[in-house]
């Protein structure tokens, strides 16, 4: 698995075969490790300077853990995180602290990530003091005023506490705190999912504006595909700890190649009745399998409407290039793209995997009499009214 070469730009962030496994412990006296949750299992990606990389996936796919591991908020089990050429995973002590100044994070829940007992002035001056920037009281005060201005908060906000703000304003404080140190990389984990839709747009616009003004590089982690598409240059789709597809944002949405991406995109409701009525939905069967016991072969095969008799169950697909900048890890990506294979309905997928519990990660039955049924029509959509 190699990282993507996106043109010849210089890469600010390079993640190589990163793994984060959490031990599952059992027993009170004998603290045995009985298994591992493979939260992130061999992810490689590259973010060029000044670009925005969007990471999408459903809950439990490991996207947040990946973001945290890049910042060393989580210890990687193996693999390398190269930030501007330096391996972050090998740093310790003061060099690590220095490095963190250049990579900051915006969290999902602004109320939970801001100290309720600190007012805005204190919240924003803390990182400056900790890193010894903008020396002197006057310098800090001026810097903070500039930050508030940059994120669109009134200077009256300085003396107020997080609970006095609305959700959108709190997220602005969180962003101001993150850009206070003039970082190169900003990792935003679900920056807008806790906000009302009318406010989401404000925060998304703010992020784009700041990127332009400060030349930031973003890694945006979100579950909302429309949000990620809007803000990202390159999008990576994660499923059960691995990247299953990566492509330039427009291409990905134009023509998703991996079955999971296709299902994910077909599941996003579009606020337009005309489109909703004509849309072909690919419903997935069942739930996400447990990352402690992931399915063999392709991790998506237990739910995949395009699963084939051969390869899918026992051969792990590698992320391979299929067109410029397009990576996909599916054995049958070309056939699916060209329409040579047809999807099965969720009932058929469930039936095929009935012998194995969804979530157990066990092999589905190999004696499935109907490897894939040619379904020429899209899945029937119930028309109401």
């Amino acid at each position, binding site marked *: 698995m190699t990282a993507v070469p996106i043109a010849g730009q210089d890469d600010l962030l390079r993640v190589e075969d990163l793994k984060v496994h959490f031990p599952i412990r059992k027993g009170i006296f004998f603290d045995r490790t009985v298994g591992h949750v493979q939260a992130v299992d061999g992810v490689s990606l590259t973010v060029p300077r000044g670009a925005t990389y969007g990471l999408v996936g*459903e*809950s439990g796919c490991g996207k947040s853990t990946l973001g945290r591991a890049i910042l060393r908020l989580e210890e990687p089990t193996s693999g390398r995180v190269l930030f501007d050429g330096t391996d972050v995973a090998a740093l310790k002590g003061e060099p690590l602290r220095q490095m963190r100044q250049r990579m900051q994070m915006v969290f999902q829940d602004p109320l939970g990530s801001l100290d309720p007992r600190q007012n805005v002035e204190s919240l924003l001056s803390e990182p400056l003091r900790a890193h010894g920037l903008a020396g002197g009281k006057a310098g800090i005060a001026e810097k903070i005023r500039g930050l508030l201005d940059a994120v669109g908060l009134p200077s009256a906000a300085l003396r107020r506490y997080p609970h006095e703000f*609305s*959700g*959108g*304003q709190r997220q602005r404080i969180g962003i101001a705190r993150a850009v206070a140190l003039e970082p190169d990389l900003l990792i935003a984990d679900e920056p807008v999912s806790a906000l*009302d*839709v*009318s*406010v*989401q*747009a*404000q925060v*998304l*616009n703010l992020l*784009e504006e700041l990127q332009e003004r400060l030349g930031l590089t973003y890694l945006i982690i979100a*579950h909302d*595909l*429309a*949000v990620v*598409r*809007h803000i990202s240059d390159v999008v990576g789709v994660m499923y059960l700890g691995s990247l299953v597809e990566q492509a330039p*944002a*427009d291409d990905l*949405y134009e023509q998703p190649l991996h079955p999971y991406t296709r*299902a*994910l*995109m*077909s*599941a*996003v*409701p*579009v*606020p*337009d*009745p*005309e*489109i*909703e*009525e004509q849309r072909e*939905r690919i*419903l*997935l069967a*069942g*739930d*996400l399998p447990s990352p402690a016991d992931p399915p063999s072969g392709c991790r998506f095969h237990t739910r995949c409407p395009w699963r084939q008799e051969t390869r899918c169950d026992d051969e792990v697909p590698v992320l391979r290039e299929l067109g410029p900048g397009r990576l996909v890890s599916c054995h049958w990506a070309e056939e699916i793209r060209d329409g040579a294979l047809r999807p099965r309905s*969720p009932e058929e997928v*469930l039936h095929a995997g*009935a012998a194995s*519990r*969804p*979530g157990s990660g066990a092999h589905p039955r190999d004696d499935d009499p109907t490897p894939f049924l040619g379904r020429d029509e899209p899945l029937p959509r*119930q*028309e*109401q*009214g």
Partner: protein
Amino acid sequence: MSSLQAPVLEVEDLAVRFTRRGEQPTRAVDGVSFSVAPGETIGLVGESGCGKSVTSLAIMGLLPRRGVEVTGSVRFDGNDLVDAPDHVLRGLRGADMGMVFQDPLSSLNPTVPIGTQVTEVLLEHREMSKAEAQDEAVRLLDKVGIPDPGRRLKEYPHQLSGGMRQRALIAMALACSPRLLIADEPTTALDVTIQAQILELLRELVVDAGTALVMITHDLGVVAGLCDRVHVMYAGKIIETADRRDLFARPRQPYTGGLLASVPRLDSARGAPLTPIRGSARDAIPWSEGCAFAPRCDNAQDDCLTEVSGSTVPLVPDGPGRELRCRHPLEHPAAPSGATAHGAAR
């Protein structure tokens, strides 16, 4: 839309006020009226704090009695529920009207197996024997798409995934084939692929069983795919009502237009900045002083902030099947095409 049938639920001038000693009462819901017919899906749409969930709780009679004033009428099959005694409501809830809440983990009892919780409804309302109820519970779980229902019945809520919990909750709501189902953000806590499964399930329910569905959500995409009629709420009042197609093609209230313009869409051109609505829902002014949305509205003019003849901005008919609460609505070119009108809303 089968609105020719008599409505199952008629809500008229419903108002909910939370009173606190020594403070002005808060009007969470203020003069809300709508109705739902069998086989019809209506949507109550709005952002957090607009009163959509309080409306649903008031309909079901689930608000506490102390400190809450509910006025207006909620007629279910012609019988008023607002002043109905508890035992009447208990007979209806779970039997004729079901409700699905947003967070399935906190609406299921964590100490009781799923099976017991489903059969409880059946034993209470359908007077089945335990064995019959058990069989019926298996059938229900199977119907909502829970694999291996027999084994799942013995499990506790924490052993199920979020999507499966929501299915179990829907199974409980459907246990007595209710004629009215109120779903309060049923898919908000779920992933999109699971959301698609649950929405499909609700769609089938409305079509096959003719259930009247009240869908409460903030997600305009869910509304576009599911609801026949849509009521947009803001600060406790309905500010716009329209059929789904009309609403999305020609939003008239600047708030509705603003919501549509501020959502990034999977199918729109990329790169264009979004058009957010200024401020947040906190900036709403009391309706008694004018239009609550006026402080955030681009169309607002001086008369939006004044009351006229002692009443607030009224909800008035606005073309066939539409109602609107606005003095300076968005204008749309005459062409009834969705694409151009959406552009005009920006």
